[in-house]
């Protein structure tokens, strides 16, 4: 509604300016120093990294400890899991909250849900003030009881990962009904990793227990893992009775302490790829994308096929290799050096590691995942607004979710299953 200008307005405007000036005229202090600003910056980065651990910021973080890598190549790798230990499958339809005793989130006041949208082929979270709306791959929408950074629709419950203001992580098991209710909350120290079929999630609790949670089965524990390791990726169909049904890839939080390893029928100390420090993604076949080497301003790694005796599909120091397409024919890469906010460019790579198509934004690429074999979906901050775009191998781009205002540190959308 337009308000007509009043003849007195210039006086009032001047008076307003003077009053604001008077209010702060005596405020001269400068209490903040570089140290306190950097402390807060570290907290922000920790929180953001916890929210997307294994994702894009982990790619940025890998640069940081390079000095130690250079000086401590023979760090004690230690035994992580007893090779004789087998995962205990104890289906728990009503999981006990004895692992941890965190307080589940209180459901916010219901708000008006966005209308169901088109089936995009991937799920994403739309962030509200105190809750998230989950837009599923088929276009339906559901408001979750808290604000989540990741979610997975299992056969039955929805499972969501969230982090509080201090960076503490939680995984909530959200049961159906109206309203949705959180039946179990796990305090976790890893982000949530979703298997490629989307039916199982895995995470490490603050008590160092490696948990798989599958719709229709419930919680299955892999027992305790070394406090120094965290989860890189997980594959399998979630039936942990079968040794390969729940297959985690673990890595040291400080990778100078040891190489990444996988737990499979050959034992827990198998390397997913020769010299792998980080497992960025694992496909349900035998492909893994890894980082094997870190220098001051770059990383090296590639795509490795674990089948049989194993072979490198390609190795590269030109890009960090991340998400593997459904057929394994392409991967998503980033620049090998990424600063604190995350990548500004992404590259679609072929099986030789060559760039098929690329996209650079002026802000940041917050999330990216494959929609199908030829298109990736990315949450990007570009031209001062957030949107989700699809980007094809042929270089074509389409805006899937329209732009939303905000700063480049707080994406209003999160593509799920990134970890």
């Amino acid at each position, binding site marked *: 509604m337009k308000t007509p200008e009043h003849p007195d*307005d210039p006086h009032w405007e001047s008076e*307003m300016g003077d009053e604001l000036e008077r209010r702060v005229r005596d405020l001269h202090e400068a209490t903040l120093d570089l140290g306190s600003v950097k402390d807060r910056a570290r907290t922000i980065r920790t929180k953001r990294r916890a929210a997307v651990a294994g994702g894009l910021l982990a790619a940025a973080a890998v640069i*940081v400890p390079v000095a130690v890598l250079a000086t401590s190549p023979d760090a004690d790798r230690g035994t992580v899991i007893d090779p004789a230990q087998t995962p205990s499958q104890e289906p728990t339809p009503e999981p006990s909250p004895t692992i941890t005793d965190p307080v589940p989130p209180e459901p916010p006041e219901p708000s008006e849900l966005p209308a169901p949208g088109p089936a995009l082929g991937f799920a994403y979270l739309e962030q509200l003030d105190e809750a998230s709306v989950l837009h599923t791959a088929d276009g339906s929408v559901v408001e979750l009881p808290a604000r989540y950074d990741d979610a997975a629709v299992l056969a039955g419950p929805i499972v969501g990962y969230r982090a509080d203001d201090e960076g503490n992580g939680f995984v909530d098991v959200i049961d159906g009904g109206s309203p949705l209710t959180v039946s179990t909350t796990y305090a976790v120290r890893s982000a949530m990793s979703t298997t490629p079929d989307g039916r199982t999630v895995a995470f490490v609790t603050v008590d160092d227990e490696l948990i798989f949670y599958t719709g229709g089965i419930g919680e299955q524990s892999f027992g305790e893992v070394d406090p120094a390791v965290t989860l890189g990726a997980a594959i399998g169909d979630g039936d942990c009775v079968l040794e390969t049904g729940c297959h985690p890839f673990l890595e040291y939080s400080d990778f100078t302490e040891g190489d990444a390893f996988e737990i499979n029928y050959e034992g827990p100390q198998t390397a997913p790829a020769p010299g792998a420090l980080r497992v960025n993604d694992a496909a349900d076949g035998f492909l893994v994308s890894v980082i094997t080497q870190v220098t001051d301003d770059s990383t090296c790694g590639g795509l490795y096929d674990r089948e049989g005796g194993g072979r490198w599909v390609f190795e590269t120091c030109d890009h960090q290799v991340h998400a593997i397409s459904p057929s394994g024919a392409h991967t998503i890469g980033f620049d090998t050096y990424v600063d604190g906010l995350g990548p500004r460019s992404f590259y679609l790579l072929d099986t030789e590691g060559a760039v098929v198509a690329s996209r650079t934004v002026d802000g940041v690429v917050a999330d990216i995942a494959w929609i199908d074999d030829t298109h990736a979906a990315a949450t990007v901050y570009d031209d*001062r607004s957030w949107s989700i775009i699809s980007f094809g191998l042929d270089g074509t781009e389409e805006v899937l979710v329209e732009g939303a205002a905000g700063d480049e540190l707080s994406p209003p959308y999160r593509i799920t299953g990134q970890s």
Partner: protein
Amino acid sequence: MQMHHPAAPAARRTKAERRDAEFTAYLHARQPSLLRTAYLLTGDRQTAEDVLQTSLAKLYLAWDRVRDRDSVDAYLRRIMVNENNSLWRRGWKRREHVTEVLPEGAPHHDEYDEGRSAALWDVVRSLPPKARAVVVLRYYEQLSEAETADVLGISVGTVKSQCSRAIGSLRERVPADLHPGRGEDS
């Protein structure tokens, strides 16, 4: 935790040190002014310092990307406004700071306009955070309508209407004998 390892390569150390030196200089030069803006946006000292610290931390993380050093203030203002709006969205912050805490040292008041001054400030405090940001940027920071719109990511028309509403509130809420022009004449 490993960032300060003595074996850190010289090139990397130099880059980090250069960033810290630049940022420290900016901090020294701009902090009091930024705190004043933060105070006007938030209305209390504690929240202002919190918003400023978080905003500066976010600026620090993005420092290498803000290539145009002349635009740093605008970038930080945008972060502060977003951060303050975000705080407002969280009910706990409102509950935590129900009482206004004025800056150390009472604000200076001219004798003749005490009533008008209080009314003006009441109106500012009663504005929703986004409207308040418009008023602060427009009348305190003296940004143009276009600059204010740019910082806030809104249209110039919205800036105009928000300002007009705020001034309209003043006209309605300040007693007629305290309207501008009358006090000075008496």
